[in-house]
């Protein structure tokens, strides 16, 4: 009986929270890249939306991984863990880049804008390289129970 209620709870959380958020995950990196583009074009800093999304997604996915009942979702859909991990890393890197750019564009100064733009590019490249090396030594794979 306990198992039955656990499965029901996990199914509800999966259908109402995890799967919709997993679909939205696709659009977040695109959204952050668009925000970066608008900051550069307008010359004014934005709202750090990347971190807002990162926070919301981090909380929801974090709960699903920490609550034992909800962990069943990942036993049934083992690819989901890999999918979420890669997307969250991507969003984190882009959000940090966007944050750096926002700091630079808080003051209207061309030299400062250029400096922070290249700082953002360097951050993105270095972070991606670190991510690549991490996964080279600890390859991510779909695991089954």
């Amino acid at each position: 009986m306990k198992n039955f209620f656990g499965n029901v709870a996990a199914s509800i959380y999966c259908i109402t929270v995890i799967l919709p958020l997993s679909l939205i995950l696709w659009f977040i990196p695109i959204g952050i890249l668009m925000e970066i583009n608008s900051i550069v074009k307008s010359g004014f800093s934005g709202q750090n939306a990347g971190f807002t999304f990162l926070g919301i997604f981090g909380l929801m996915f974090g709960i699903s991984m920490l609550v034992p009942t909800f962990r069943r979702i990942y036993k049934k859909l083992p690819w989901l863990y890999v999918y979420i991990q890669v997307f969250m890393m991507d969003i984190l890197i882009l959000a940090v880049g966007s944050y750096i750019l926002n700091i630079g564009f808080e003051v209207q100064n061309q030299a400062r804008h250029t400096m922070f733009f290249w700082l953002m590019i360097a951050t993105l490249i270095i972070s991606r390289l670190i991510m690549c090396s991490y996964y080279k030594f600890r390859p991510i794979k779909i695991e089954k129970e």
Partner: protein
Amino acid sequence: MDDKNKLQQNIKKAMNTSRFHSDKTTSVDEIGSGTKLHSTVSQPKPAFESRVKTPFAKKLKGFGIALLVVFGLAMTFTSKTGTVDVSGAANKALSEQTSTSLSAGTILLAKDEELSAQDYTIAHSSNKNNTKIWIWDYAAEDGDYVQLLVNGAPIGDAFFIKNKPVELTVPTVGIVQVKGIRDGGGGITYAVRYDLNSTTYFNSAPKGEMNTYTLELQQ
């Protein structure tokens, strides 16, 4: 015969050990040396198996904790409006647009509401050449930009005004102007506090226009 006893002892030992895998089978040949026995001994399934954490569950838990840490950090980096002052002095300041009791950095509104743009003349008796001013957004941190001019010349570049006050130094006599550069939505709302007369002015600068503060030495 010695091998058989040794084997029995090993089995007993294994049965008494609390940590083992249920699927592990121990070949007798591995234990006994020399004597060929073809039977295998299956260890019984432990009663607490369901409580044993699998490596995948551990990974999930570890990543879940990391995600909650990310959540905490993300909330710190996300810009949000600070605590709105709802005291009587704050309400009075909203209607009068000036206050001598509120400190620098006071937030009056959670969302931008444009107050009327005002110019002020500040008469004082300070003998100093320069004075400090603090400028901040008294409403939402929505991306308003202003630029400060002293006697018609800009002092520094235009900047994003936040809830946290920015300290600047201006001369005690002259004309200080605050120019609205960018409206993040709902009007360019800012407050400026003069150390000179310990007064805060809650004002609004339309985009491209200026509020003028004339600083005069009182005879």
